[in-house]
Structure formats: C-alpha cells, structure tokens
C-alpha cells in the first residue's frame, strides 16, 4: 500500500549536478532517471532479471530497477546518454558495424556491461564474452552479433596488449 514518504536527494548524473530533488522514497533509480528525461534507460522487467536498465553507479554497472533513487544520493551516475569516452565511441562503432542491436531496447544495458568488460583491460575468449553478457537479455539478435561487437571492440581498443 501507499508509502508517500518523500526524501530530498542530490547526485551527479553524466557529470552534471542534480541538487535537492525531492523524490518518493519508494521510487527506483530507473524511474527516477526516466522522469528526469534520461529515456535511454529502459525498463524491461523491473525485477533485476533483464539488464536493460543497467546504469553505472560510481563506475560500476547496476540494475537501476533494483536500487532506490534515495540509495543513489551523493553518488555519480552514468546513463547511456553519458557513455561518451573515446573508448565507448569505438565500442558503439563496433556495435553498429556488426548490427549488434535490432530493436535497441536492450542496447543501453548491453553497453553498460560492455563498458565493464572494456574497463577490465584484458582480452577474453568468445565463450568468456558470452558469459559476461549473460546478465543482459536480448530477444532479437540471438547474441552472436553482440559477441562479435564486443570482441571487435576489445581488438580495436587494444586492451591487454
């Protein structure tokens, strides 16, 4: 039943300060970000299964549907709109080249996972890549194009060399 407690929070989203925003305590981070206009965060299941809503919280990928907005108070959030490093631009080019998205609904979450793979700064086998993206549902591609794109990205960014 209704719990309309409200809390005032501040956080940095994509390097911009968002201060003193009053939210319902029960609101999850995904809804909060979408309400602010960060529509690239997609909600697929709201139970932490599908990974479409992944965002970075202090640099780690997190299911934004499983975290309350108030828990992100004082933290640094990156949504897909903020994934603009030169490395991530290479990743995006590799995704486009391999058609590693069809409908695009899973893509922002998939990019967050890929960000972590790239950040770990080493190479992986295809099987390892498959395992690492197994927290993200994709219903369109059958995954192979995404594995290709991640593999391509790692080769282009020269991680672990």
């Amino acid at each position, binding site marked *: *039943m*209704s719990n309309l407690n409200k809390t005032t929070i501040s956080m940095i989203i994509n390097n911009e300060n968002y201060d003193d925003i009053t939210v*319902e305590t*029960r*609101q999850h981070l995904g809804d909060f970000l*979408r309400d602010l206009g*960060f*529509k*690239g*965060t*997609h*909600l*697929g*299941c*709201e*139970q*932490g*299964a*599908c990974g*479409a809503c992944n965002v970075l919280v202090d640099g780690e990928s997190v299911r934004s549907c499983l975290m309350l907005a108030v828990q992100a108070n004082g933290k640094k959030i990156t*949504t*897909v*709109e903020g*994934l603009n490093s030169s490395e991530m631009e290479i990743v*995006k080019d590799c*995704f*486009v*080249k391999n*058609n*590693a*998205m*069809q*409908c*695009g*609904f*899973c*893509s*922002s979450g998939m*990019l967050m996972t890929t960000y972590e793979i790239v950040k770990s700064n080493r190479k992986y086998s*295809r*099987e390892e*890549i*498959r*395992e690492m*993206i*197994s927290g*993200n*549902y*994709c*219903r*369109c*591609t*059958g*995954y*192979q*194009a*995404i*594995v290709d794109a991640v593999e391509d990205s790692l080769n282009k960014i020269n991680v672990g060399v």
Partner: protein
Amino acid sequence: MDDLNQNPKLGAADRPNSYIGRSVPRERAKKLLEGKGKYVDDILLPRMAHLSYVRSPFAHAKIKSINIENAKKYPGVLNVFTIDDIEKVCTPWQGVLGHLGEMRSPTQYPLAKDIVRWQGEPVAVVVANKRAVAEDASELVEIDYEDLDAQLDMETAMDKSTKVIHDDLENNLFWTRTVNQGNVSEAFKQSHIVEEVTLDFARHTGVTLETRAIVADWDSSEEKMTVYHNGQAPHMMQSIIAKHLNLSEGLVRIISCDVGGSFGIKVHVYPDEMVTVAVSKLLKRPVKFVADRLESYSTDIHSRCHKILGKIGVDDKGKILAFEIDDLSGIGPFSVYPRTSAIETNQVLNLSAASYVVPNYKAKGTVVFQNKTPMCQYRAVGHPIAVAITEALVDKAANALDMDRYEFRKINLIPDNSYPTKTPSGVPLEDLSHEACIEKLKKMMNISELEKYKKESLANGKYKGFSIINMVEVTNPSPAFYGVGGAPISSQDGASIRLEGSGAVHISTSITEQGQGTEAVMQQIAADQLGVKIDTVRVTHGDTDATPYGGGTWASRGAGIGGEAVLKASRKLKENILNIAAVIMQSEVNNLDVQNDQVIRKDGGEVISLKDLAQIVYYRGHELPPGTNAELIATASFSIEGIPFVFTNSAMGCLVDVDVDTGLTKIEKFWAVEDCGTQINPKLVEEQIRGGVVQGIGGALYEECIYDEMGNLTNGNMADYLVPMAYEMPDIIVDHVTTNSGRSILGAKGAGEAGTGGAPGAIMNAINDALIPLNTQVTSQPITPEKVLKALGKI
C-alpha cells in the same frame, strides 16, 4: 521506358549506388544504440493520465460485485471504470473469420463482463495522475468473485464431463479442419514400414523486451483520436479502433515509433489497449498504458500448446508413401481478434511434410478453449510444430530402414526442377531449392567428420548427436491469409517517393520497423533504383496520417511486398526525373541516367544535379516548356497475386551434447542454409536467421508458461520463465541459396521466421540422435533436463 536499358541488374554491385545486395549498416542503428530511440513509454503529453488494470486472480469465476468507491477516493485518482462504463464507448468483438470453415468464438468484451475466463483478464481500470498512484488505488478496488471450475487441459476439453467455458456453446470446440489427399489408409497398408510418434509442445510466449504500450490522445476539438502504439499493423489498428469506438476512420491516427521487439506479439487486438483508447475518449485527455512484465506474461498472447500425433509410411527403398497427422491445440477462452486463433493449427495442417513428395496425406486439427491466456500467432506460426513432427518422422523412418538420414531426405525432397508444384496438403509452391540447400548444408556441416566425432565421443562416454532438417516458410502472404476472411488487414502495401527541393529523396512506406532494419532496406532499394547515395534518402513509416495504406510488418512480408512497392515507385520517379532532365539538358531520354545524385549523359559531358533539377521544377518552373510533366513524386503499390503465399525454404542442422548425468543439452553448433530469394541486405537477413534460430532454441529447450491445477500462471516473470541467454547459445553459421521469387521484380521473399520455425525440430532430432545408443528418445518440448533424465529412466 526500356527496362533493360534504364534499370540495372538487381544485386549486381558493379556500379555506383548499387545498394541492393550490400550489407550497408543501418543508419538508425547508432541512435537506437545510444538510447535515443523513441518508444511509446518515452512519450509525455500535457495532462496525460496513467492507467493500471485490475485483473482477474482466477482462471474462471463469476463476478458477483465490483466496488470502486474507495479506489475513486484515493488521492490522485481521476476515475475508475468497469465494463458498464467502457461498453458505452467501445463495442465488443468476435475473433472469427469466414474463410476457414466454421469458427465458434463468443463475443469478447474489452473488460470482463459477469465472468472472468483467464487469470490476468482485465476487470477494471484505474486512471490516475501517476502510474504508481493508479497501482496503489487498484488495490482498493473490491471485487467479489465466485470461483468456477477451470477447464485447463486441452486433452479433456471435449470430454462430456468437462466444464463448458461458454454457456452459449455446446462444448469447448473452437475450430476443426481436416485435409485428405490421396488414400492414406491404403498407402499405409502398402508401406514397408510405418512409424509413429506423438510430440508435445508447451505454451510459450514472445517476451518482447519492450512490453506492450499505448498512449491514446482524444482531441475533442478535432474529434480526432491519435494513438501511439508499439504495434506492427497501424492501418489495421486504425480500422479496428474506428469501428469499435464509433469514430470516423479518417480521424483515427496511429503512430508507431520505435518498437522494442514484436515477433507477432504486437499485431493483435488486446482488451487493455482498446480500453485505453476508450478511457481517453471518456476523459477527453491523453492516457498511457504500459504493461508491466507480470502483465505481459499473463496477457500477451501465448503460442504453441500442441499435442500432435504423426505417422509415416515408407516403401522398402525409402520413398515416402503416406503421411498423417492429428493435431490438438488449446487457445485459451477466446479466439484472438481479428486474426483468430485458428491460424497456427491451419499452418500445421498446411505445412507438415511440405518439403517432401508425399502422394497420400491426411491431417486433422482440433482447436479447443481453455481457461488460460489467449493463444494466437507468434513468430513462425505453426512452423515449429509442422517441421518438428515431419522431421521426427523422417528420422524415424530413415533409422528404421537403416538409411543415412541425408540420403533418405535426398530421395524424398521435392526436386528443385519440379516447380510449380504443391505441398502434400495442396498449397501451391514455387521457386524453391531444397536440394541445393541440403547439398550446401551437408558441405558446411561436414557430415562425415560429425559422424566420426560422434563415434569418438561415444567411446569416451559422451553423447553427441546431430540433425539435418528441411523446411518451408510462409512469407509474403496474399489476401488469402486474412483479408478474404473479412479481417481489415491489407495484403497490399504502398510507397510514395519524392525528390525534394534540397535534392533529398523522401520515401514513405506502409511497412513498419521493429528492429529488423525496414528503414535501411527501403533506403537501399530506393537509392539503388534511383541512382542516389543512400544518405540522400529519408524514410517515414509507422504513421497512418503520413504513409500510404498497407498491412505493416508481420508474416515476413516487409521486404518482399513493401520493398517491391518502393522499387516500383522509385522506377516511376526516375522515369519522371529523366524526362524532365531530357528537356533541361536537351538530350534523348535514353542517353541519360542517374548516378550519385546527378543526371548524367551516358556518353559523357554536362551533368545536372538532382538538387538543381528539383529547384528548377519547384522554384523556377517557368524555365520549363509549358505542359512539361514536372512531377517529382511517384507512388506505387504491390500485393501478391495468383498464389496464397511466397514460400521460402531452408535446411538447418545442429550438433548437440547431451549430458546423461544432468540431462543438460549443450548446442555445440548450429548451421542454416536459407533461400529467401534476393537479399537486399545480407547482414540483416543473417541476423534475422540468427535471432530467429535463438527464439526457436528457446521454445525447444527452455520456454514454457507453467500453470498450476487452479489455472494460475506460476512462472510469469523473467526470473522463472527461462529464455535463451548468451552463454548457452552457439555461434550460428548461415549461408544462402538464391532462387528469386517470380512474383516480383525484386524477387525477395521473407526471412524473419524460418529460424524460429526450423530450430525446434533441428534441436529435437539432434538430441534424439545422441540418445540412440541409449535406446530412448524425447518427444516433449521444451526438452528440459528433467525430461531427458526421465527418458533415460534416471528419475
């Protein structure tokens, strides 16, 4: 215009702007990737209210009373409606069509009236200023139910003692059909061997990652209803919404922006979506409904749910003499509007044994009601069942005769030089290539190596199996699919193309985009045919106010039908451009061509850019001689005539490892050879095949809507309902044979569903091949570890 002279060979990448046949990256891909797609839930309108549905917790119950007063008083709630309010603005419907014999499905109301018939059926709707508030208030709607017996099991649906779900029907039968070609019983008597098998296919569903969503915006000043809908068939929705809300069809506008996957799930009429439109009309304000994931599982259409008995008779040389099937399917309490829930079974009857020469064929289909979620068409409608039963029987017959499975198929496949011909059920076939595909597949798979690998593995206690299957896929349907039966579903599609003052080319198409790459494919066809760079071409789709009339994207029809319309319109526009250019350039038309956004002289010399030409036409028309036909817009339509469907064919195979201790199946490799005619964008075709195969693997190994004995869906969430994840999936090797469809200039057939249609049979046969040394087989999908262990007698 001389076609040979002006229209270059399709798919020949030997000239500028020859885009047909090239894997051009999708222009929109980056926007989608970066989260810049515009999905229905992203839409915000002033004064927009949000809906939450109160749904039946029972599979079958009488509604004794509904009390909405407390919910209405909840702060933030705008109103609460039941069927008493909604039926004043929205009429009920019936999911029956006239072309397939008698269908008996009762009237379905947009909200439950008196009786609920599946767990999840909408009963009341709460409208509030926020979705969360609407959900809070939903809990305050008090409904008193009287529980009724639920009719769940399709196998007992027709028993005399079984509860009849609809009082006005004498039993639970929705539809039945038989097909009888030749004399099956005589042919079985003459057969050297007769093999039988019964296969079960569980209910599963499509699990689009973006759930169903709709925003309805009634503008009372214009009397206009604008609906943002993540669907596949905007003009169908326009017609249906106008009809049931008593609106002028021309004043209903359907806009389908980016769609987060559809797979046939989003091509049906859903009660909660019709109610959303009705609420907008009642409240005279925009309203939004987005299904949450739990609602998706219990209200998105389910599919499959078949039990099929199959029988094959073969002579001593391995020639198939007879084939018989008896299929039973359960569809929930209503046939789904407007496509009906008969089509999956109809496809099973039409498509079983469809790759083979079978002189005697008999098929019976029975479709019954149940108190479960309504069942309807999902990707590869009927194909997984038809292919699996056919290929299971073919393997059984080959094994019984101790014949190589490939050799057995080779002598029974419909020969490539025998078209046009018919399926054993009597459906016309043309332009297919089973022999070429299986030859290519055999080479790709390297079957002799696989046999060796199997033997060596067995010596090490590992059970490996592989399969080869053949199939046809229904694509590019004619009016015979739905229109002939009375559904407002266009089999024709249109394209309009214009050259603008900037030199840009703009297409509008009635085909929609759900991620397949419709936009890219239409751009490629237009740029190729006009002779412009691909980034010159813009595409508008998914808006009934802005596109030609047409069917939309389903049944693997977008490229083959909508693409042909774009091709024809592009050729007309090019003809107009060249005629105008001939006047401006003082040249014979036949000496001119368009390349790289310019009209060129074939013998060299002066050129004129399309931009300059367009600006003369639009801004300085006085420079043209009076009476010049200066139209820089052209429109064309296309539909399939003369045959019901344009079939494609494929051969597929896979290699599996079955762990006999855990029952787990690991797919080591999957191969597919597909013949979809002209490939406009080979990469996109391959990705359709791969994505389709993986959805087929889901049905074969993991996916099932599990109900308890009360009719409760027990795993309707993403954690408990398993879909394929990256780790379990193999790399899928795809190759092609190209036999163009003779029904169009483009020659393209569809490619969207073959993977889903073929994979379940390929997986099952491979597992059963692995189990041969253990003298057992599996016959029930999904083939879970538990079922494998049961087959092995271990549990």
